[in-house]
């Protein structure tokens, strides 16, 4: 491919006057003899109307296209931030950033792929299932991304109840209401199902059978070492068993898998508080409450941290705020019970 321009050509003309109009007075110091008017005329050699129209049409098209620039660039920036956040295991940030992208550009396949990953790690299964559904039939060009999403899809049965367990759920109205005996019988015939094992662990945790719960969680984590809810429960169990270093270990494991896990941070705060390291506890509680101040577990943890750090004013503000939100109930009640001496925290 070649496009060539001839070298500039020097016009040396024999006559003494202007080479263009013959005017006797020419401007000196130039290779071409031209009078002032002709020199000015050639310097401003006209641009043809067709070229101007061509440029004008491009300009008009460009102006129309420019209207989309702010929206596209904003989406591009949020997408980049989301991708970077995933690389750093900051899944909370990633989900927020990528959700903004999808809102602006609903058909953006790559953003959906990354959002599916972020949602999964945040245990936002509703968003994960929605994204995976929307990716059906779409071509995923990045093979490693494709494999990662497939790996996560394969894990889904561990995180949601199967039909046979749902039958018990319907009968007893909640997973925590299903009797221990029913769980044991169910698990004896469904040994590979992690979700019912986790629900059973929750029931025996509530019944303060901490050792049995700890062993059951070990078995779950043996099959899926990154099972978030099992790790969450582990931190609580270890605190109840007064194995505080171990509790920190599981908090750190949660945070290594998802650096912005509010549960991981709040649980770390509670572990510090249990160790009577109240300043560190408050620091972690504040950190866990930052991304979503209304998140029940971290809000209750912050209230507990304020209580143990002798900041009743701040604590009471949170208690008051929690009354407006029914989802806060159980978590905040635990703090109230500690304040009233009904529950022993340390």
């Amino acid at each position, binding site marked *: 491919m*070649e496009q060539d321009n001839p070298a500039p050509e020097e016009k040396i003309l024999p006559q003494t006057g202007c080479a263009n109009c013959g005017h006797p007075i020419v401007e000196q110091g130039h290779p071409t003899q031209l009078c002032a008017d002709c020199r000015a005329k050639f310097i401003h050699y006209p641009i043809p109307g067709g070229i101007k129209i061509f440029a004008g049409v491009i300009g008009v098209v460009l102006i129309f296209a420019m209207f989309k620039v702010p929206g596209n*660039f904003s989406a591009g920036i949020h997408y980049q931030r989301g991708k970077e956040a995933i690389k750093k295991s900051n899944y909370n940030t990633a989900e927020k950033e990528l959700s903004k992208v999808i809102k602006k550009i609903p058909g953006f396949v790559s953003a959906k792929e990354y959002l599916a990953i972020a949602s999964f790690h945040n245990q936002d299964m509703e968003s994960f299932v929605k994204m995976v559904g929307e990716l059906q039939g779409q071509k995923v060009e990045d093979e490693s991304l494709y494999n990662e999403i497939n790996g996560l899809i394969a894990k889904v049965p561990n995180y949601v109840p199967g039909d046979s367990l749902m039958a018990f759920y319907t009968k007893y109205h909640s997973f925590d209401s299903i009797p221990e005996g029913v769980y044991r019988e169910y698990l004896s015939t469904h040994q590979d199902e992690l979700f019912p094992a986790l629900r059973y662990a929750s029931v025996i945790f509530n019944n303060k059978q901490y050792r049995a719960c700890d062993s059951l969680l070990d078995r779950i984590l043996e099959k899926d070492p990154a099972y978030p809810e099992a790790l969450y429960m582990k931190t609580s169990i270890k605190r109840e068993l007064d194995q505080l270093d171990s509790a920190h270990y599981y908090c750190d494991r949660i945070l290594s898998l998802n650096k912005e896990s509010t549960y991981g941070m709040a649980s770390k705060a509670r572990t510090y508080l249990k160790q009577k390291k109240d300043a560190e506890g408050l620091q972690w509680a504040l950190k866990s409450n930052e991304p979503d101040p209304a998140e029940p577990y971290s809000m209750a943890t912050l209230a507990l941290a304020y209580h143990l750090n002798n900041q009743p004013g701040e604590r009471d503000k949170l208690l008051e705020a929690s009354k407006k939100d029914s989802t806060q109930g159980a978590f905040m009640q635990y703090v109230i019970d500690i304040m009233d001496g009904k529950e022993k925290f340390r």
Partner: protein
Amino acid sequence: MFIPGILISLLTFPGVIVHELAHQLFCRWCKVPVFKVVYFQFENPVGYVLHEVPANKWHSIMISIGPFIINTLVGALIAFPAALPVFKFNNAGPLDYLLIYLGVSIAMHAFPSTGDANAIWEHIKDKNTSLVVKIFGYPIVGLIYLGSLGSFFWLDLLYGIGIAIGVPNLIIALLA
């Protein structure tokens, strides 16, 4: 695959027009008379600008490299709004594809031709040319020749695509 240069120039004619227009505009800004401009024709060279040999060596260099500056800037500007929908979001419309075609076509004709390089060469080899001009001029001539050689391996097309995709992505990387 060998595709004749004239066919490529025909397909990317907006770039040729902007290239010649850039020479012309730099002549105007350097106050150098222009005697003839061919913006596009179906023979080799597909376009050219005939102008007076500038007395100032810097002007000569600037007129020769003018298309590199103008085509790069105009190509990037035109492709700018369309690059993300086409290359990233996969939600581009016909207008976006038109802008990408124009942007890439224009940017890929940014490289000065060997004729432009020869013009600079003729000026700077003169014994009266200052050392500073030579220091700038010789590498420019070398780069133009390298670019010309590279165009055989589609370097100009790669450059055009690079400008169209690269600039928006660079901005995003800086702002994110």
